[in-house]
């Protein structure tokens, strides 16, 4: 009993009080800052990028493909690419994830999430998601679990992961979607009552990531069903997840 109280006292309060104002410390690689004027057109970044996320003219990075490895930042001789610690990268638009130019985090955020009225009206105060790991490497899965831990505590916003798709308002997908997992993902989607949302968490889900083009994948699901929210990251950071979802719900 006293031991328990001692542990409790030692821990103090762990929850991040205002999650919208939280910061991730510096070396974290979030939203890239691209300075096209510095670019020497040597194309090293494009050559070494393992996922083809970089395009030149103008210099741009696709956050839906980027695995945030930081190799381009390290190898660019002109310092044209740098990753900032801005983490609120979720967007309702796939095209918006292609970042060119020198946007600050706040500028990026302004139009990133378009909270649709029918979604905020229906799910605004409570969103229950069925998570489906479709060949996710367990990185995003660990971070989604962490999103519910005492630090990030997304449950306090009425956002929960539920056991059955029948209790869910939508599907949260991680992983590049393997051929072997495609039927189960489709089943889970069909078992979720309408209206429902589809959210992609992590680079693999959004673009296939390092597995893009593998014959072992089957990404038909994404051709057949609309996606409502994209959460970039490799893996997604819990703060990116929670803040993305909060904005998505119009809060």
């Amino acid at each position: 009993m006293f031991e328990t109280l001692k542990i409790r006292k030692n821990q103090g309060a762990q929850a991040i009080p205002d999650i919208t104002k939280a910061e991730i410390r510096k070396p974290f690689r979030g939203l890239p800052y691209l300075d096209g004027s510095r670019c020497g057109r040597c194309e090293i970044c494009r050559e070494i990028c393992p996922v083809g996320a970089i395009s030149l003219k103008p210099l741009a990075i696709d956050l839906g493909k980027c695995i945030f490895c930081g190799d381009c930042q390290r190898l660019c001789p002109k310092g044209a690419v740098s990753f900032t610690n801005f983490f609120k990268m979720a967007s309702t638009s796939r095209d918006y994830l292609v970042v060119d130019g020198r946007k600050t985090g706040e500028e990026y955020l302004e139009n990133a999430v378009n909270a649709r009225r029918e979604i905020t009206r229906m799910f605004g105060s409570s969103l229950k998601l069925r998570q489906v790991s479709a060949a996710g490497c367990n990185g995003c899965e660990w971070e989604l679990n962490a999103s519910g831990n005492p630090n990030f505590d997304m449950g306090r916003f009425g956002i929960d992961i539920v056991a059955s798709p029948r209790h869910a308002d939508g599907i949260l997908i991680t992983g590049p979607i393997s051929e072997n997992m495609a039927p189960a993902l489709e089943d889970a989607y069909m078992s979720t009552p309408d209206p429902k949302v589809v959210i992609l968490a992590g680079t693999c889900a959004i673009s296939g990531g390092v597995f893009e083009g593998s014959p072992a994948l089957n990404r038909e699901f994404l051709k057949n069903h609309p996606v409502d929210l994209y959460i970039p990251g490799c893996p997604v950071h819990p703060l990116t997840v929670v803040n993305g979802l909060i904005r998505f719900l119009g809060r």
Partner: protein
Amino acid sequence: MKWINTKNNRPVRIKEIPEMAMEELRAQIIRTCRDGARVISFFGMPRGYRTAVYAVLADDEASRLYLASALVENHRRYPSITPEVPQFHIFERELYEDTGIMPEGHPWLKGVRFGHERANRESTMERYPFFTMQGEEVHEVAVGPIHAGVIEPGHFRFMCQGEDVHHLEIQLGYQHRGVEALMVKNFRRSGIHLAESIAGDTVIGHACAYAGAIESLTGVEISRRAQSIRAIALEMERAAIHIGDLGAIANDVAYLLGNAVFGVTRTLVINTLLALTGSRFGRGLVREGGVAFDFTPELIKEFIEKLAKVYHDVNLMGEAMFEMASVLARLDHTGAVDPAAARDMGLVGPAGRASGVDLDVRADHPFGIYRFYPVHKRTMGSGDVFARAYMRYIEIKQSIDFILEQLDSLADDRPLLQKAGKPAPDSFAVSMTEGWRGEIVHCAITGRKNEIVKYKIKDPSFQNWYGLAYAVRNNGISDFPLCNKSFNLSYCGNDL
């Protein structure tokens, strides 16, 4: 014995590897394993219209690896090794699935991962040949591939008698992304990135194994400082996941204080790793030729302070949890794997060590900085959930001690990152590391033009999944989550 004798991270030329008839290879494997050797890799690769089967055995006491091969006609059969040496069961299943070479008399020759390049397209996930059970009070419980929580997919079929599990069959393959094929195809562009994504909870473990294989083939010896930084990250990874898993075990016995406290303590560890690498999982750190990030004196100071707090908090929480009668009542004698069975199945890592299997790559086949700072092997004997949990508790402290020792004696040599040249042609490299789940083995084979022609990955989960199935036998089905968490095996590490 004519086998070629080598060591961890010491490549051999392909033509030096003795080639023999499959029957002869089998006979020698059986003989060598009876003398105490252990299989760590066994696979085939196409050579012309035939298949070259490679076997890598480990002599752990002598820190030796033995290699031999057989050239086999496609779709031929040979008498299975498994009835003589049970640890081969999963390796032979994989060989059959990948190449079609059939080990006759194998007790359960079922699919392993249903890969897109498998030899037998008739074998599909829908038609998995489950065991069946009949009788009074007999029923089956099917779970997955999608589980209740945020977990990777896999299908579990419990054959129960009343409340007790008689047998559990685990069907995997849902996570198959074709990593090994991509490793060959996209080696230059994304080898290290693929290695970091073999199992996203073992980023450092697999990246170190990959880097070890490539560096040994290119002949690069990385600096002492880079070796230490890799080992620090590897131990951070181990400590973080073990702490997280202790929290998960606490959760499964409804000890919520443990779940909460271990959960936030893990956060502290991985956020500290982020301070060095920019990623909570250490992504981007390990690169061919060294590491991409360095310690500043301030960062060393911060690591020491944070890890002291982690040690303190883990100790406080662990002492309370492992003394609580209501926790122990659930952990003791649950999901026990006896030492003989553990050895037969070939269990590795903390799950093996909890059952007295004294294997640890860091001590048996040391790599990197572990060659100079050996790790003492710790084992337990009861093999139950308690032992697997307590083993983790011991290893967390051991890892933190190791990190502190390294931080105190960090070498000042450079460069941190060297340019890796071309891999040697026509060579075979074996690279082993001790990830938090246990022994990771990567085998890389190069061709005439210095290209990678075969990349074989063995995650510790590959062998240990069967340990989980064995552990739940004759246990109440409600204890399955607890057994599962005590192993916490990788689905994608198996499915690749």
